[in-house]
């Protein structure tokens, strides 16, 4: 039991550590840059620059924390789904749903606290390492800096609270577990749950429709004023929230199409079924990655469009163009890495949830082995499932990101030349290529542990009555 809890919480611990470490490292680095600027303050503007840096840093921290929250909530939901029988048994014996949910939230708080503390240490060490590297490589002069800075604590606290909150949110299903599920089939969903799901779909659809409308209004406004981007931003956040909320309805059709592309071999067909037949499970596994890929693509598309616009405007000034190319490339690279970190957290989430869900399907895998599925076919099935999930998430993210990136660029830049201008979306092929390769690598990594696990399942042990 203890060992099982530990493996179940390892993913959440890792995510909390990553999010906190990212925030701490970012703030430590900006703090260090602040020290460097103060040491070399000729213009007297170092305070403003430091503030700007801090704001930018916080934008990325918020994104990373948000993604980590979504990932953790989904991991916890996966754990709860796997523990249904056990929860139902305790309910049967008289424990209240509230008490059980409270226990899971407390586990989340404890895991979050440990992870955040680890993150504080790791993040600070990474920042010190970077400062050391900058000094050795002669990028920055060596400056005095106090690393023990209370200003880096907020992301640590935020990481703890987010994990706690996410565990609470992710354990919502505990309330829906009926005591009778200890005796019967755990896959059954109650009427209330189906009603709740319908309500959720309706809310998601409303948000998405209203948000998209607002986004288009923002784009239209953007033809006359750059402030259109603010309206568009609100619309973008709302519509994307709708998509995240309605993932159980959005992802299965995409997974179905992707699944068909996997081929018609038995492992591929079963994998496609698996990915589609359990909409909650597959949306839990993919949505984090969709968010990560959308953000990276959106940003890259917006920057690429901006760059193409600038290049078009400076056609007769080759001297300027080199500078523009360099600045934009550097910005894309730095910001891409910073947002990419959220993508990494999302990837960790996918690896974990896929592992957990395979672990929870031991019986099913044993049954398949008994009925004549070979080991290599099981391995192929897990790989295909991993590929379907990753590919669906990546493609969705790229499509959404391209749309949002273009909308952002259009709303912001549509009026810069004084006359309304339609900005063509520019596709950053380099970034897309990196995403596709990363998705391929992720597919393999995510399927590694579960496929090893799947092939060691003995049909006899899996079918034993507990």
């Amino acid at each position, binding site marked *: 039991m203890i060992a099982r809890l530990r493996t179940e919480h390892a993913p959440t611990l890792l995510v909390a550590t990553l999010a906190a470490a990212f925030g701490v490292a970012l703030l430590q680095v900006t703090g260090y840059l602040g020290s460097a600027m103060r040491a070399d303050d000729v213009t007297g503007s170092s305070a403003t620059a430091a503030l700007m840096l801090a704001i930018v840093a916080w934008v990325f921290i918020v994104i990373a924390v948000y993604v980590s929250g979504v990932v953790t909530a989904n991991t916890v939901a996966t754990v709860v789904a796997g523990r249904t029988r056990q929860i139902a048994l305790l309910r049967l014996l008289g424990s209240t749903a509230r008490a059980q949910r409270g226990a899971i939230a407390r586990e989340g708080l404890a895991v979050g606290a440990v992870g955040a503390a680890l993150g504080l240490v790791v993040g600070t060490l990474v920042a010190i390492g970077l400062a050391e590297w900058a000094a050795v490589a002669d990028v920055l002069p060596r400056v005095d800096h106090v690393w023990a800075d209370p200003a880096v604590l907020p992301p640590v606290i935020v990481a703890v609270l987010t994990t706690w909150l996410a565990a609470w949110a992710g354990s919502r299903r505990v309330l829906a577990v009926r005591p009778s599920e200890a005796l019967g089939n755990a*896959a059954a969903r109650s009427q209330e749950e189906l009603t709740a799901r319908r309500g959720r779909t309706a809310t998601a659809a409303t948000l998405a429709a209203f948000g998209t409308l607002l986004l288009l209004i923002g784009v239209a406004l953007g033809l006359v004023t750059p402030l259109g981007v603010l309206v568009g931003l609100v619309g973008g956040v709302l519509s994307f929230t709708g998509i995240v909320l309605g993932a159980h309805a959005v992802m299965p059709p995409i997974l179905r199409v992707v699944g068909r592309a996997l081929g018609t071999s038995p492992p591929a067909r079963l994998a496609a079924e698996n990915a589609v037949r359990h909409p909650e499970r597959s949306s839990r596994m993919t949505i984090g990655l969709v968010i990560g890929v959308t953000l990276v693509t959106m940003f890259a598309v917006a920057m690429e469009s901006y760059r193409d616009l600038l290049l078009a405007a400076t056609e007769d000034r080759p001297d300027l163009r080199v500078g523009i190319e360099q600045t934009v490339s550097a910005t894309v690279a730095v910001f891409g890495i910073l947002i990419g970190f959220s993508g990494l957290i999302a990837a960790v989430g996918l690896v974990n949830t896929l592992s957990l869900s395979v672990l929870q399907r031991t019986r*099913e895998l044993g049954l398949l082995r*008994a*009925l004549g*599925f*070979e080991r*290599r076919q099981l391995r192929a099935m897990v790989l295909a499932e991993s590929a379907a999930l990753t590919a669906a998430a990546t493609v969705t993210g790229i499509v959404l990101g391209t749309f949002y990136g273009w909308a952002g660029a259009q709303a912001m830049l549509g009026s810069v030349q004084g006359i309304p201008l339609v900005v063509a979306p520019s596709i950053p092929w380099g970034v897309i290529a990196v995403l596709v390769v990363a998705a391929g690598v992720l597919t393999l990594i995510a399927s590694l542990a579960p496929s090893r696990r799947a092939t060691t399942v003995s049909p006899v042990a899996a079918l034993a009555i507990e």
Partner: protein
Amino acid sequence: MEIQPSDLGLVARVAGLGKRYGTGAGAVAALENVSLGLRRGEFTAIMGPSGSGKSTLMHIMAGLDSPTAGRVWLGDTDITHLPDGALTVLRRRRVGFVFQAFNLVPTLDVLGNVMLPFELDGRRPSGEERAVVDALVERLGLGERLRHRPHELSGGQQQRVAIARALATRPDLVFADEPTGNLDSRTGREVLAILADASRAHGQSIAMVTHDPIAASHADRIVFLADGRIVRDTQRTSAEEIATYMLSMERAA
């Protein structure tokens, strides 16, 4: 030239079978020196007290587990040391299973579960096979339920789906381990009658573990296990006689 099991009219056979769990002082001998041949087209009931080795015997005969002593044949193939891949394919083509519970893949609907053996074999059923499946589904009363998922079915319906699946590819041999263990006795007997019927219609062999003397009284042959050994092997007999023997075994234990 060695005599093949099929020459003796057998579809499966074990000789001098032994199975131990663990080593040293804590070792458990689940089976000891068991020799048994299952005859073609025969319905064999396996009975015995809990822990007597019924499941273990069934798993080994079906190629789901390997013995620690003795030899095992499935058809004419000696599967004792067969590599996993070949064994899996053999199982897929020649053997059907009905377990006590967890028989169905939860993500697949009834039809998906029944067609699973074809799916796993990577082929579509021929027209004739499709007709067999349709007839089975009708006979088992599952016609209205083909698009339902397992959790929408009662225990008896789930077991009927498992039976349809076990018989769908018309395997030589069907193993059923307490297929009615989770059902009330009336539903249980219904399920058994269907199993026995369906298999007799196609001359398939069935080996079934059961606790129910009435169910066993429908079998052509009854094998009693106690402490990992075969203690009695009899032709069809009455439910009363079976019940009396079972009682005497439990008393002796």
